C-alpha cells in the first residue's frame, strides 16, 4: 500500500468520482447533495469534490425520503445506476417501504426480469442530532446488502464495489469517521462485499466490532495486550452478507468471543452474530458469547446521558474481561 493518507470523507468522494468517470449511468440523488451556487454540496460534504465535474449528475431533491429511494429504484430498473443519499439514517424509516418491499424484492419477484443496481448511502452514529444506528433491521431483509466500513481504505473500496453491484446495497457511513484519516493507495482497488478483515491477530479472545466500535475495540486491545491478554479483533466490514468463516475461524481458535455494535443491544446485529457463533462454534466455546450494544433506550441530547447509553471503550473492556473470567 502507498503511504497516502486521506479522510474517510475524501475516500468516499474519490470512490464516487472514479465510478462516475467509469460509468456514465452513475449519478447521485438526495437532499442538499449539490444545492447550486452557495449550496451545501452534501450535508457532510461527501459530494463537494464532485461539484466541479459532475454538477449535472448531482440531483437535489425536495424532502421526500420515500421518493428518493423509490425514484432510485425506478431509475435502476430502467437502466441507470443511482446512488441515493439519506442524510441521517434516522430518516431511513420514511423510506422503508421502498427499500424493503420494493427494491429488495425486485429481482426475486420479477424472477430476474428486472433488478435494482442501486446504493443507498446513509450517515449514522451517535454524533450530533439524529444519532441512531440501525443495522439489524436491514440484515433481516433478503436481497439487501449492508456495508459498514470503519476506515478510509474500506470506505472507498466498499463503495466502489457497492456501486458496481447489480443489487441494492445500504451503505452506512458513521459520522465520527468522516474526518478520520487512513492509508488509501493511489491505484485503483476494490474491497469485496461480505469479506471481514482481521484488524489485530490474537490468541486469547475474539472481539468482533463494526463501524466506529472498531476504533474503540482497537484501543482496548492495545491496552490489554500490555497486560498480557492477546485480543484478536475482527471487523466484518459488511453485516450482510456476513463473513461468518472468518469469525468462526477466529472463535474456534480463541474459544472466547465478544461482539460489539452501536445498535440497541436487543435484537441488534450482535444477537444474530451470537446465534450464528453459537450454532457454528458450540463445542469450541469456553463461555457464552458476550454482547455489547447501546442500552435499550433512546439516545438523548445531553452528552453525559448519551455516554451512558452508547457503548464506550470501558464497556468493551468489561465485556472482554467477562469473557475471560466467566466463572
Amino acid at each position: 500500500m502507498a503511504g497516502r493518507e486521506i479522510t474517510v470523507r475524501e475516500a468516499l468522494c474519490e470512490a464516487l468520482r472514479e465510478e462516475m468517470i467509469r460509468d456514465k449511468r452513475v449519478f447521485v440523488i438526495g437532499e442538499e447533495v449539490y444545492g447550486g451556487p452557495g449550496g451545501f454540496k452534501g450535508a457532510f460534504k461527501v459530494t463537494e469534490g464532485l461539484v466541479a465535474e459532475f454538477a449535472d449528475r448531482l440531483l437535489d431533491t425536495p424532502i421526500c425520503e420515500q421518493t428518493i429511494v423509490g425514484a432510485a429504484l425506478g431509475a435502476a430498473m430502467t437502466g441507470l445506476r443511482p446512488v441515493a443519499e439519506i442524510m441521517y439514517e434516522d430518516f431511513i424509516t420514511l423510506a422503508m417501504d421502498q427499500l424493503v418491499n420494493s427494491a429488495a424484492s425486485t429481482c426475486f419477484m420479477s424472477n430476474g426480469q428486472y433488478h435494482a443496481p442501486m446504493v443507498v448511502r446513509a450517515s449514522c452514529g451517535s454524533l450530533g442530532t439524529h444519532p441512531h444506528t440501525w443495522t439489524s433491521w436491514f440484515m433481516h431483509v433478503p436481497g439487501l446488502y449492508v456495508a459498514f466500513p470503519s476506515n478510509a481504505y474500506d470506505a472507498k473500496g466498499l463503495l466502489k464495489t457497492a456501486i458496481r453491484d447489480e443489487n441494492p446495497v445500504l451503505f452506512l457511513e458513521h459520522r465520527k469517521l468522516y474526518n478520520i484519516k487512513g492509508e488509501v493507495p493511489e491505484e485503483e482497488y476494490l474491497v469485496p462485499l461480505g469479506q471481514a478483515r482481521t484488524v489485530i491477530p490474537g490468541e486469547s479472545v475474539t472481539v468482533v466490532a463494526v463501524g466506529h466500535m472498531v476504533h474503540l475495540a482497537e484501543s482496548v486491545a492495545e491496552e490489554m495486550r500490555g497486560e498480557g491478554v492477546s485480543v484478536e479483533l475482527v471487523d466484518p466490514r459488511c453485516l450482510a452478507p456476513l463473513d461468518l468463516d472468518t469469525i468462526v475461524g477466529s472463535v474456534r481458535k480463541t474459544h472466547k468471543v465478544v461482539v460489539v455494535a452501536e445498535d440497541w443491544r436487543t435484537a441488534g446485529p450482535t444477537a444474530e452474530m451470537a446465534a450464528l457463533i453459537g450454532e457454528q462454534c458450540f463445542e469450541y466455546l469456553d463461555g457464552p458469547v458476550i454482547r455489547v450494544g447501546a442500552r435499550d433506550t433512546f439516545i438523548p441530547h445531553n452528552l453525559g446521558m448519551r455516554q451512558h447509553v452508547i457503548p464506550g471503550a470501558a464497556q468493551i473492556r468489561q465485556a472482554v474481561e467477562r469473557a475471560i473470567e466467566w466463572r
Partner: protein
Amino acid sequence: MSHSEEQLVSLYRWMILGRQFELRVEDLATRGLIPASVHQGIGEEATLVGSAQALSQDDFMIPTHRGHIAAIAKGTDPKRLLAEILGRQDGLCGGRAGTTRFFDSSSNNLGAQAVLGSVFPIAVGAALTQRRLNTGRVVLALFGDGTSNEGTFHEGLNLSSLWRLPVIWLCVNNLYAMGTRFTNASSVPNVADRACAYGIPGRVIDGNDVVRVYEEVEEARRRALSGEGPTLIECKTYRHKGHSAFDRNPYRSQEEMQAWLARDPILTFERALRTQGVLDDERIQRIAADVQGQVDEAEAFAVNSPEPRPESALERIRYSGEGN
C-alpha cells in the same frame, strides 16, 4: 377525433378479451385453483384498455393490483399471465409474484406495486431515466382513488412536476377503495382537483368511454414527450364486482350498482359501434368466439403448467448478471 374502423374494433376486442379473461379468472378462483385473492377489473375495461392502448410498445406502465386487463392491453401474453395467477412455473414470474405483483419486461410492465403507493416514486425514477437518456418513452402510472391518499402521491406529483418528467398520472377512480367510499376519504370531490397543487393539468373524464380515455392519454403522452411534464387524468368508472373475488360488497347500494351496470363500458361501446355500422351481430359473434378460443387456450396453458420446484424460492434473490 376520428379513428379508423380498425382501431375501434381493436379497442372493442381488447375490452372483450379483458372481460372474458377476468371472468375466467373468477371461475378458476371459485374452483380453488388460485392460491390468493384476485382483484377483478370487470367494469373498468374502458379505462384500462383505452389508456394502455394509447401508449407505444416502448412506453412503460406500472399497473395497480387490479391490473390484469391493463397488462393484457399493454401486450402481456394472457397464457403466461394466467399461469402466473395460478402460481405456476410458466407464469410471467415463475409463480413468485402472483396476481398483484407481477412484472412483464417484454411489454415494459414495471410491475404492480408491492405496497400501493410505490407507483409514485418508482414512476418518478423510471421517468427520470427516460428524460436523462432522452429515450422518447413515457411512463404510465396507474393508481386507484384510495392510493391517491398515500403520502407518496404528494411526493411523486410534486417532484415529477418540478423536474418536468415524462409521466402520465392516471387515477382509476371506481369510487371505492375496498369498502371505503371516496367521498369519505378525500377532502376534495375529485382526485384531479389536486393537480393545481403541483402546477400540472388535472382532467376528470368519463372512464367508461374507451375512446375518450384513449384520446386523453394520447394527449398527455404528447405533452410528456414535448417536455411539458406530467398530467393527472382521473377516469371515473366502477367495478362491477367486489374488491376481491369473494367480496359481496354490501357497502354498495343496489341502486348505485344497477345504475353503473347500465353504463357498462362494453355494452355502451358495442351499441355505439353498431350504430356507426362498424359492428354487427356476425362480427360480434366472431370476435366473441375468437376471444373465447384465446381464453380457453390461456386456461389450458395455465392449468397444465407445472408447479415450480419449492426450492426455487431460494433462487434469484439477487441478480448475478448474464444468464441469471
